[in-house]
């Protein structure tokens, strides 16, 4: 788009060509046109040209500004400005190249996709993070357990060796280990299950792996150590073992399941390793107990932890139950007290709640008590219900300009609400409260002090009720 500045002379030329008039005329025309528009604008008029648009004056308010050079505050005077509003026709023409474009609603689609991509990126990294965290945690725990085991191992080694003696004779019967294979698997799986419970987010796969790894590591580490120690003992004839067997078994029984699981594990190990190291099965069996015991400690530890949690929960449950019971007892006490009190005014329905003996005592009391408060209630109600006859009058009031029934009532009874009774007494004159007219002689009735008791809320209530009745009727 080449921007070329067309001046009036060029336009005049074009115009004279197009309309086929002299240049002078078209020049004059253009000048006259512009002059006319100018004049109209100066006289604060708007000028509309069909097919082009409207010229208008716009007042720009004076405003404060800052001198760019000096930084001093200056006030820019208000001024008029010519504003040109193009016709719809011209507007469309101007926007023709972009007419096909429409505003596009940018709903959250873009943002959502962006976020989604970010999330997926995160999700890709997250599992790795989790795995790493979990792995390190598990390693820590295992190392702690190992440390514990190492301490205890020294103490238990002697005993362990004895146990191996008893158990080493068993592999002679091949059926037993086959049967007991399952428990170990169960234990392992249990551990695998219990581990993730400690860290809810943990992936069981990782845990299992870790356990397997750690156990393998232990297997690798310990056998040589223990084997070295044990080999010496293993040199002893099998006879010793068989003789040792009898007392050992009896000792085993009272001891905890720990040994049972030990057995099971050791047997499994043996089954695995017997194939490879048949002649050395004795030594191996004793050697393989080390990892098994470690697993046992793990298992026992978990069991103890579970027991602790169970006890804690138990304690919680018991305390809550106790609270519940206590609160129930307390409530019962509360409930019992008011019953005996409320029974008195409530008369007969309360009797059903009471035991026979108390009914006899309280029935009489209740009836006496009930009778008295009931009386004034009824009396008032009777007063309200019976048609009021006004025979005595304390005064007559002449209605003057500005008189109101409420004001008259206020003057005579002290309360404006009782105007209804004045109205009732003058029903012969007044058909509705609005009928009051200047010059009327209104009779002011003497009211029953019980009925018109300004201190009694019920009386006021009744008066207001009458008020509503009369006001609505008109």
């Amino acid at each position, binding site marked *: *788009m*080449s*921007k*070329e*500045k*067309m*001046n*009036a002379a060029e*336009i005049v030329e*074009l*115009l004279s060509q*197009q*309309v086929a*008039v002299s240049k002078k*005329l078209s020049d*004059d*025309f*253009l000048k*006259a*046109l*512009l002059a*006319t*528009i*100018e004049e*109209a*604008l*100066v006289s*604060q*008029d*708007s000028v*509309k*040209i*069909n*097919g*082009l648009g409207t*010229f208008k*004056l716009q*007042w720009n308010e004076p405003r404060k500004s800052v001198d760019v050079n000096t930084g001093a505050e200056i006030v820019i005077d*208000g*001024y*008029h*400005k*010519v*504003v*040109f509003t*193009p016709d719809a026709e*011209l*507007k469309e*023409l*101007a*926007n*023709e190249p*972009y007419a096909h*474009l*429409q*505003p*596009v*609603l*940018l*709903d959250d689609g873009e943002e959502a996709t962006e976020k989604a991509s970010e999330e997926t990126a995160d999700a890709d990294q997250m599992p790795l993070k989790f795995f790493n965290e979990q792995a390190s945690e598990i390693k820590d725990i295992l190392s702690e357990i190992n440390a514990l085991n190492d301490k205890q191992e020294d103490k238990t080694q002697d005993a362990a060796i004895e146990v191996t003696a008893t158990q080493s004779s068993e592999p002679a019967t091949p059926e037993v280990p086959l049967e007991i294979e399952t428990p170990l698997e169960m234990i392992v799986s249990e551990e695998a299950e219990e581990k993730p419970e400690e860290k809810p987010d943990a992936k069981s796969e990782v845990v299992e792996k870790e356990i397997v790894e750690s156990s393998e590591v232990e297997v690798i580490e310990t056998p040589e150590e223990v084997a070295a120690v044990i080999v010496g003992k293993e040199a002893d004839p099998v006879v010793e073992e068989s003789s040792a067997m009898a007392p050992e078994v009896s000792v085993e029984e009272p001891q905890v399941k720990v040994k049972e699981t030990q057995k099971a594990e050791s047997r499994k190990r043996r089954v695995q390793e017997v194939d490879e190291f048949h002649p050395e099965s004795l030594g191996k069996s004793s050697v393989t107990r080390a990892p098994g015991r470690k697993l046992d400690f793990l298992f026992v530890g978990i069991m103890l932890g579970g027991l602790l949690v169970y006890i804690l929960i138990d304690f919680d449950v018991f305390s809550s139950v106790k609270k519940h019971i206590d609160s129930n007892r307390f409530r019962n006490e509360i409930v019992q007290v008011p019953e005996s009190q409320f029974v008195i005014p409530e008369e007969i329905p309360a009797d059903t709640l009471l035991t026979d003996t108390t009914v006899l005592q309280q029935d009489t009391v209740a009836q006496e008590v009930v009778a008295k408060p009931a009386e004034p209630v009824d009396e008032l109600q009777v007063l309200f219900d019976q048609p009021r006859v006004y025979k005595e009058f304390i005064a007559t009031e002449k209605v003057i300009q500005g008189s109101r029934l409420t004001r008259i009532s206020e003057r005579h009874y002290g309360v404006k609400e009782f105007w209804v009774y004045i109205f009732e007494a003058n029903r012969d004159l007044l058909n509705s409260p609005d009928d009051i007219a200047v010059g009327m002689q209104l009779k002011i009735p003497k009211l029953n002090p019980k009925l018109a008791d300004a201190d009694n809320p019920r009386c006021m209530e009744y008066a207001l009720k009458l008020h509503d009745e009369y006001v609505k009727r008109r």
Partner: protein
Amino acid sequence: MKHKGLVAAVASKLNQPESEVDRMLEATVEILKSQMVAGNMVSFQGFGSFEFKRKEERLSVHPATQVRTLIPPKQVVNFRQSTTLKMKLKDILRHE
């Protein structure tokens, strides 16, 4: 002042029939349009200039609903008053 009033005023100044002035005015408007469509700027000395201006596309956010809308670019007619006209208008009594 409406179109007819303008035509009448110009006609009386030029001593020309209104029909002729109307024809010329129409032609002038057409020339103006065609020049602007061609991308030219038409300026009348002492009055002002007409021009098409392109407004770039922009992102508008509805302040209440926070709905973001992409407003496409558009072209508008721009009239710029000349300084002489502005000076003449200064003589007008202040608004209110």
